[in-house]
């Protein structure tokens, strides 16, 4: 107790001296920056397995930050991006998040693509009472007060899609996904919708992560002849699945694949010809027509190259920075804390490329689900756009559990 008092005293003296004479301790430029800029962490992997996707998220978020700075910043203060590369390793995510939140005093950190990396950062951001902005669609069942969820949860991906599928294609679903939590939770929710709609699941299959030979799955699809192939295969596996599906000459006219995970990035690797005719469900497609999206796509392409694509996660990485900025604008510049930013962000409306979005009090985002059909040029044509903004229900498949502004409430 005594010792702690002593340390505290020394700390106080130290802080006081920093405040009174900053130039003695650091270079003038850095002290200036600390005085005026708002430090913001960017925690996307630039190397390793998920770098393929995360580098695009990094690019989109960085572009938003620089756009905001070019337009004068927030209350005249610039956002200062501090970039860390967690190298696709969850433990490194936690470590770098800690560094950003403690050493660099970031008031918010933007990062992660995979659920495993978000969950690694979760204890850090909760302990430091910081704010972690997570742009990816995910499986729900999480309700942290220190994470801002920008992507779709199962009810936002499926509430529009599944009834439409049953009505237009038929009730017999074939589920194929990678063997981990996201596909299982999505299928779980899909099954609960199907039981209400009178649909049935003819087969539910999970292949290992990175699985690349789908001949047996394709044979089973061929013999089952389902109405709908409901796919939650991710990344390289999805690319291999789509290409082999095409090589097997299964006709998308008769048996289309409906993917919750296939975006412009995967389609680029699959090739337009093999992807054409199949569908994806997402709140955003690069081909969506809106002035905000045209501006976003054009800025992205002119900055990173004409052959680059934007997709439903990079869009969220982009608009989340703007949500952060809008929340900051509501705050007193002298009193910026992560929790104040969070409270200011709740209820915030923003014109994103996908449409006008809203932050729910459960910190998830109200989104505009869309169904797109892939064309041979690698772009999706948006066939169905939800008539209204869909509210996020991260516990939709779990009766009696609701994610609210006070955290998870169990009935």
């Amino acid at each position, binding site marked *: 107790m005594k010792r702690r008092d002593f340390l505290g005293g020394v700390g106080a003296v130290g802080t006081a001296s920093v405040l009174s004479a900053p130039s003695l301790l650091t270079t003038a430029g850095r002290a200036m920056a600390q005085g005026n800029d708002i430090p913001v962490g960017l925690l996307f992997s630039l190397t390793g397995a998920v770098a393929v996707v995360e580098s695009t998220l990094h690019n989109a978020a960085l572009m938003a930050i620089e756009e905001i700075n070019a337009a004068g910043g927030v209350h005249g203060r610039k956002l200062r991006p501090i970039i860390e590369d967690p190298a696709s390793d969850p433990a490194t995510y936690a470590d770098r998040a800690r560094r950003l939140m403690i050493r660099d005093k970031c008031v918010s950190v933007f990062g992660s693509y995979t659920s495993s990396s978000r969950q690694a950062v979760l204890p850090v951001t909760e302990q430091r009472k910081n704010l972690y902005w997570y742009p990816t669609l995910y499986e729900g069942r999480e309700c942290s007060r220190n994470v801002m969820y920008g992507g779709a949860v199962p009810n936002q991906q499926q509430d529009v899609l599944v009834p439409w599928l049953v009505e237009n294609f038929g009730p017999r679903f074939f589920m194929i996904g990678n063997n981990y939590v996201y596909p299982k939770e999505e299928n779980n929710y899909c099954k609960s919708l199907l039981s209400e709609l009178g649909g049935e699941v003819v087969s539910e299959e999970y292949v290992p992560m990175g*699985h690349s030979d789908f001949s047996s799955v394709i044979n089973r699809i061929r013999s089952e002849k389902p109405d709908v192939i409901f796919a939650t295969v991710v990344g*390289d596996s999805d690319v291999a699945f789509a290409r082999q599906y095409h*090589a*097997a000459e299964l006709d998308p006219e008769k048996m289309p694949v409906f993917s919750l995970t296939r975006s412009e990035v995967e389609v680029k690797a699959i090739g337009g*010809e093999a992807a054409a005719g199949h569908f994806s469900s997402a709140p955003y497609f690069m081909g969506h027509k809106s002035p905000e999206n045209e501006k976003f796509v054009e800025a992205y392409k002119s900055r990173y190259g004409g052959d680059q694509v934007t997709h439903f996660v990079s869009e969220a990485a982009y608009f989340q920075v703007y949500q952060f900025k809008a929340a900051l604008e509501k705050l007193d510049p002298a009193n910026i804390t992560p929790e104040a930013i969070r409270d200011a962000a709740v209820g915030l409306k923003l014109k994103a490329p996908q449409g006008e979005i809203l932050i729910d009090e459960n910190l998830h985002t109200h989104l505009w689900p869309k169904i797109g059909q892939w064309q041979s040029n690698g772009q999706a044509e948006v066939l169905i756009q939800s008539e209204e903004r869909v509210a996020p229900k991260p516990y939709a498949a779990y009766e009696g559990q609701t994610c609210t502004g006070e955290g998870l409430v169990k009935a």
Partner: protein
Amino acid sequence: MDVISNQLFAGLSMASILLMIALGLAIIYGAMGVINLAHGEFVMLGAYTTWALQTYAGIGILLALPIVFIVVAAVGWIIEKVVVQNLYHRPLDTILATWGIGIILQQAVRLGIGAESRFVKGPELLSGNTQIGPLIMSNYRIFLIFFSVAVLYGTWLLMTRTEFGMKLRAIIQNRGISECYGIEAKRIYSLTFAYGAGLAGIAGALITPLFSTIPTMGTGLVVDAFLVVIVGGLGSLIGAASAAVLIGEATALFSIVINDTLGRIAVLAGIIVLIRFRPRGLFPTETRR
């Protein structure tokens, strides 16, 4: 019934891909005792060479095959000359060295070409299916099966009917005595390593239309290739072929009876049992080491 016949074909198709990847490994491993952990990266280099040829020179996969073979063989040859050659009497170190080379190649491709998955178009000529009763076979997969058998036969001819093959077999049996008879073991080893690498390159070129072309694609493939080599028996061509068929068919049948995830587990468990009772594989070759 038609499910089973289709599945048998799927197994054969898997086997042909496994065989092509494993063949190069079997030769390098069997002939030289080098556990080449960079083999998957040779496959990856083959895939990327095909991509580059198609994207920048407009050369289709089939025409690209000889070029891919030469390019990847050249890379293998250089690696053998610079690194592996100095480590023949330190077999454990070759594992570490080739692993490191693999990482270097993978990251070089990631930095130089980019991490995103690349698109390679399959040959028009071989698109479509052939249907015999209930059996539906993709033409490209049929081609792969025949091609892998041809590569196997070609390699067998090379090993048994040429002077190079005779020298190589002599060195495998006893390097010291062979050198006394004037065989230049170093040169033969370099060429063998290059040949094995070239085969991996061809395998990479041929699987690109089916799989996704990314810098890490070799890592998973090399594991399967090692399984084939170990089950087949070191250095045995016929062993590699039969092991590839065995593993391919077992995977296909298990995955239809159970599912892909459990099927994979069952196959690996089966291999462990097999290795327990036949530690030197199905067709061990008698060599002096």
